[in-house]
């Protein structure tokens, strides 16, 4: 093709760039707006039309959530004084619960799924096909159908409203995907090193920990991020299996705050912003591994 720039191509390129910018606004707009709103006082936020960029930026909303000091904008306008939800102050402990649960789920996935995937990808044993299909099929039940049975199980284990209940349930939800993902990953790595290790007299466990794990490290990173995010984001079971702030997670508290008719929009924005910071940090810092991991699930054969 000739390098001459033709008007048609310029138009095309401009058109594509405009399309990309529109897409960026669609994708990033909601994030930017909720962050901007979290720095606005309630009276500014309820103007018609609201200002996109805070005219009088304030950190009062954040201060209220963390220290309980009522924002000044509420004191100025008497009628807005009631529009504040005590519940918003639960967001910090709720996110702490989310963290404890999601991190434990991540560790359990690493500990349980890695050896299992190794056995599926490399070992020869009876019932392998059956076990593999069972694990994959276990994720086919829609969550809503098993929510009640889960409730019954957790109650009979006397684990209602504990971190452990959600750690167990979220592990059961994530391990099948982790095993599938890692099995594909290991199957797609060459096995020469392992053979050499076995010849050198390593046992299976040593081959797994010293040779396989370092080799599949990118896969393990992606798997850990998936497990963490799935647990951190999960709502339905967290809603059913928790009853107090001793175990309620971020999504549960956020949805409960927003259901309060008395809630302040500034405070919802603060909770939404705080709730989405951890996954956003993960998504940006681990972008490469996440994208490669997701791509591999659809292109590995």
């Amino acid at each position, binding site marked *: 093709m000739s390098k001459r720039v033709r008007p048609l191509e310029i138009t095309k390129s401009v058109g594509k760039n405009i399309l990309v910018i529109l897409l960026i606004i669609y*994708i990033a707009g909601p994030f930017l707006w909720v962050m901007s709103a979290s720095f606005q006082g309630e009276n500014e936020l309820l103007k018609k039309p609201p200002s996109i960029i805070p005219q009088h930026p304030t950190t009062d909303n954040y201060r209220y959530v963390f220290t309980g000091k009522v924002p000044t904008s509420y004191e100025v306008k008497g009628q807005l004084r009631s529009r504040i939800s005590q519940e918003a102050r639960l967001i910090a402990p709720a996110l702490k619960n989310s963290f404890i649960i999601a991190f434990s789920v991540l560790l359990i996935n690493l500990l*349980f799924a890695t050896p299992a995937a190794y056995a599926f990808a*490399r070992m020869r044993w009876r019932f392998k096909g059956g076990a593999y299909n069972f694990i994959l099929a276990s994720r086919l039940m829609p969550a*809503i159908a098993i929510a*009640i049975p889960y409730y019954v199980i957790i109650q009979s284990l006397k684990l209602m409203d504990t971190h452990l209940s959600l750690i167990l349930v979220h592990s059961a939800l994530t391990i099948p995907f982790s095993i599938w993902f890692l099995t594909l990953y290991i199957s797609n790595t060459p096995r020469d090193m392992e053979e050499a290790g*076995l010849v050198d007299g390593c046992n*299976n466990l040593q081959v797994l920990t010293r040779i396989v794990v370092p080799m599949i490290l990118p896969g393990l990173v992606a798997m850990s991020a998936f497990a963490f995010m799935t647990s951190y984001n999960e709502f339905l079971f967290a809603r059913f299996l928790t009853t107090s702030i001793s175990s309620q997670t971020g999504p549960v508290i956020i949805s409960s705050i927003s259901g309060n008719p008395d809630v302040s929009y500034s405070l919802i924005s603060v909770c*939404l912003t705080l709730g989405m910071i951890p996954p956003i940090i993960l998504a940006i810092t681990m972008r490469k591994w996440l994208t490669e991991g997701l791509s591999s699930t*659809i292109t590995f*054969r």
Partner: protein
Amino acid sequence: MSTTVSSAAGTAKRRGNSNGSRGSLFSYASITPALLVIALFTIYPVFYAIRISLFQYILTKPKSHPFIGLKNFQEVVTSYYFKDAVINSVVYTIAAVTGVMLFGLMVALLLNSKIRTVTLLKVLILLPWAIPAVVAGLMWKWILNSDFGILNGILYSLGVVRSYIPFLADPVLARLSLVLAHVWKEGPLAAIFILAGLQLIPNEFYEAARIDGGGSLRVFRFITLPLLRPILLVVLVYETMSAILTFDIVYVLTGGGPGDSTSLLSWFAYAEIYKFLNLGGGIALSIIIALITLMLIFLYMRALRTEDTIS
């Protein structure tokens, strides 16, 4: 790249018994912890769910649970809401999946091109996928608010509308809003999948087509689309399943309303249990949804298999 589990098993077989019985002992030890956790939360719940669906379980009558066979299923199917819920679910699924596929294809094609602005889009695209659906739903609820929402504010300031639009109070607009939020949340994953597919297409194909004088639209129609077909099929089925099972975003964004206009089948499964307090009915409806999903997964497997025979 032609190793699936079954062919990995094949290689193991060829290797003979070098691992011996210690290998299989190691395998069982490796698999047991994971299998136990999964089994506890799969086998028991499934049987429990099926059992409950055959009994009358109404939470306001805690003492009597007579066996009623398939009556729960019959009651659900003949209930006042079932027909509307099916129509809502089908319409929603078609709209959401169409939206997600078009969005995914467009974003993937742009990400695969050499436009300068695309770098930023590459960083941002994962974000909607990464955050909780509850957070996404609430962000949109707040943006679409009919009294204070920023979208109304912008449209009003630009002079597009003369008064604020009740996006979530009007049945048609509420459905559209739900689709808009769904595409925002689910579209990015589809885009990443489709991009992975695009990157599998060898460059020579495009070059050959260009030498033959194909315009970009023709190249897309006759090279990109046919080669992308298998991946598009997988994404299509996956997205259909996730659209049918949509719950979180409905729960926070519209709560099934206004009226029942955004009440999908999965919403009624929730409502049967937590609003009508009819456990048996709710679980029967969940099982119906599960069967629909299973049918789709069956299609998914078949689509994959045809794809394997093609490649």
